[in-house]
């Protein structure tokens, strides 16, 4: 009998609160908190009232479908859009294979993208040619089969490929290395396909809209990584020359606004180039963005390197690992893990900073926004256009942020 009381489980005290209790504790605990809460509610009410009235009754959203294609791809010629379709399908193929092999988070990302894709596939908002009567096109589009199988064949094809390659890639662990090589090669592949050869080639001056923004951001984010690692290691090097060069580079670039680097790339660089050698405008912007963000990446990674205890290096040396192998297998994996939040934060910042290229005459998402407003017919609709563009930036930035939070949770920063 007595044993019973000893082995009886003791539950932790119930500290959860009901919603009423929560409201009382957090919003109405004192008379001045109550007043502040009421004031806040009134302000929120008026803000959202004005906002919703504008969104649903005053705004003229017709500008968005009329220029949707321009916003997405800029002046890229419509007869060549199949090139973008091929790139899209390539990337979804790689994603499908990766999702099958790595599962977990990669699979979740693939599912999220498939969800967005299906949504876009089925809603009757479509790319409308500029100047066309939108109501007529909308009517036409109501034929959903025509819409999906002809006007959205690339989207449909990409989604099918995603599903099929996922099934193919399932548990093919020996493919891992090839998939990684594939992702690396997808960058030059994308550039080559989008540009093309011969008389059908699409000059990079015709690349624009969200397409250009995504390309610039992807190149900047990915290319600054190896450069940043080298600079971070260089700054910690024991060799004075390497240390000095790395430090001067990092501090110079960090001391200068991105826009000056873009201007230098677009104005000064051609002056120093030999003869009539013309470096492509988009490439120059890519180089500028990469150089700029690599110095920030270097400082992020250096922070991570400092967080790795010296005992780790000693243990690696004690088993005879050389310096490059010690860095590769022991130090960098731990250093990068420790600074993933900072790296993602920087990537989001760079994604938004690409909008500065519109200042040097590139037609990225923000740049095409300006040209649209430059046409007299829609010049009064700047609020609609900027709002739409802001939402696109937000959706991408927020997605990156969510992915980073999930990765952090997986790595259990501080766990292993």
């Amino acid at each position: 009998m007595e044993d019973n009381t000893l082995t009886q489980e003791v539950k932790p005290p119930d500290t959860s609160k009901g919603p009423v209790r929560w409201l009382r504790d957090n919003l109405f605990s004192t008379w001045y908190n109550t007043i502040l809460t009421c004031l806040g509610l009134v302000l929120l009410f008026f803000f959202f009232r004005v906002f919703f009235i504008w969104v649903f009754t005053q705004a003229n959203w017709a500008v968005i479908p009329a220029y949707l294609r321009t916003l997405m791809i800029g002046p890229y010629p419509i007869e060549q859009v199949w090139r973008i379709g091929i790139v899209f399908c390539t990337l979804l193929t790689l994603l499908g294979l990766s999702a099958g092999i790595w599962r977990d988070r990669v699979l979740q990302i693939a599912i999220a993208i498939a969800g967005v894709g299906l949504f876009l596939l089925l809603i009757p908002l479509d790319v409308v040619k500029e100047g066309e009567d939108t109501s007529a096109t909308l009517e036409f589009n109501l034929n959903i089969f025509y819409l999906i199988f002809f006007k959205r064949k690339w989207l449909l094809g990409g989604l099918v490929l995603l599903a099929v390659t996922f099934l193919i890639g399932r548990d093919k662990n020996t493919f891992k290395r090839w998939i990684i090589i594939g992702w690396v090669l997808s960058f030059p592949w994308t550039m080559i396909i989008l540009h093309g050869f011969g008389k059908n080639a699409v000059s990079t001056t015709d690349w624009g809209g969200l397409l250009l923004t995504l390309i610039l951001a992807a190149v900047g984010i990915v290319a600054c990584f190896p450069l940043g690692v080298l600079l971070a290691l260089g700054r910690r090097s024991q060799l004075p020359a390497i240390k000095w060069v790395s430090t001067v580079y990092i501090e110079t670039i960090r001391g200068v606004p991105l826009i000056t680097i873009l201007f230098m790339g677009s104005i000064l660089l051609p002056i120093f180039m030999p003869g009539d050698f013309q470096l492509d405008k988009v490439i120059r912007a890519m180089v500028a963005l990469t150089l700029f963000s690599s110095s920030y990446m270097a400082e992020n990674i250096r922070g991570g390197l400092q967080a790795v205890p010296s005992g780790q290096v000693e243990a690696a040396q004690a088993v005879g690992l050389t310096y490059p192998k010690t860095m590769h297998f022991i130090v960098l994996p731990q250093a990068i893990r420790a600074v993933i939040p900072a790296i993602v934060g920087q990537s989001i910042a760079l994604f938004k900073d690409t909008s500065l290229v519109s200042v040097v005459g590139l037609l990225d998402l923000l740049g095409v926004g300006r040209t649209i407003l430059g046409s007299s017919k829609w010049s009064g609709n700047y609020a609609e256009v900027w709002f739409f563009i802001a939402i696109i930036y937000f959706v991408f930035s927020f997605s990156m942020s969510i992915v980073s939070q999930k990765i952090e949770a997986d790595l259990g920063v501080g766990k292993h």
Partner: protein
Amino acid sequence: MNENTTNDPIIICEDVHKWFDDFHVLKGITTTFKKGERAVICGPSGSGKSTFIRTINRLEEHQRGTIIVDGIELSNDLRNINLIRQEVGMVFQQFNLFPHLTNIKNITLGPIQVRKMSKKAAEEAALALLERMDIADQAYKYPAEISGGQQQRVAIARALAMEPKIMLFDEPTSALDPEMISEVLDVMRELAHSGMTMLVVTHEMGFAREVADRIMFFDEGVVIEEAAPADFFDNPRHERTKLFISQTLQH
């Protein structure tokens, strides 16, 4: 002398000096360790014990004198350093396991990357070592998921996986809870009986008395006394040694 000790010298130190900036840490260490010998190094904290054994695999650089390990003189030649590090295993006070790798990967990394062993052979050898350390069931866990005593045994296995000729231990049980000390000492005892050349910095005097061929007493960067355990404990000559022995035996 234990039954494994030979007369072949494997580590020869001649007048080894070391400074940290102006601070003279090692003030002329001259000694020879023979193949199969078990030496225990003790002495007060800060006397240079860690610094001394770390010069032997070049984690610290000495600035005067010579150190010859297995016939190779330690110099700035990177190739020699890497050759010696392959022959000298080291176990640290704080384990220094790689936290992002599973225990078995901690062990196989060196053999695969340095000894160029195949992954399969390295894993088989690692599992055999973990079996010998009595922790085969922990192979696929991460270091953070096992106890301190188990972590230190993984660290010993990691060093042994390189099939070294010499093992250095720097206070391997000092960071452990008392109930885990014996499981690590048992493993070291077994290793000693297998004929490994061992240099052990430790304050475990029971272990020293039982296993050591020689005890070296460090004070302020010099070896002030060295003797076989029986001599060392029963007839210490220096006052410092007497004091140290009476203090450590009280615990």
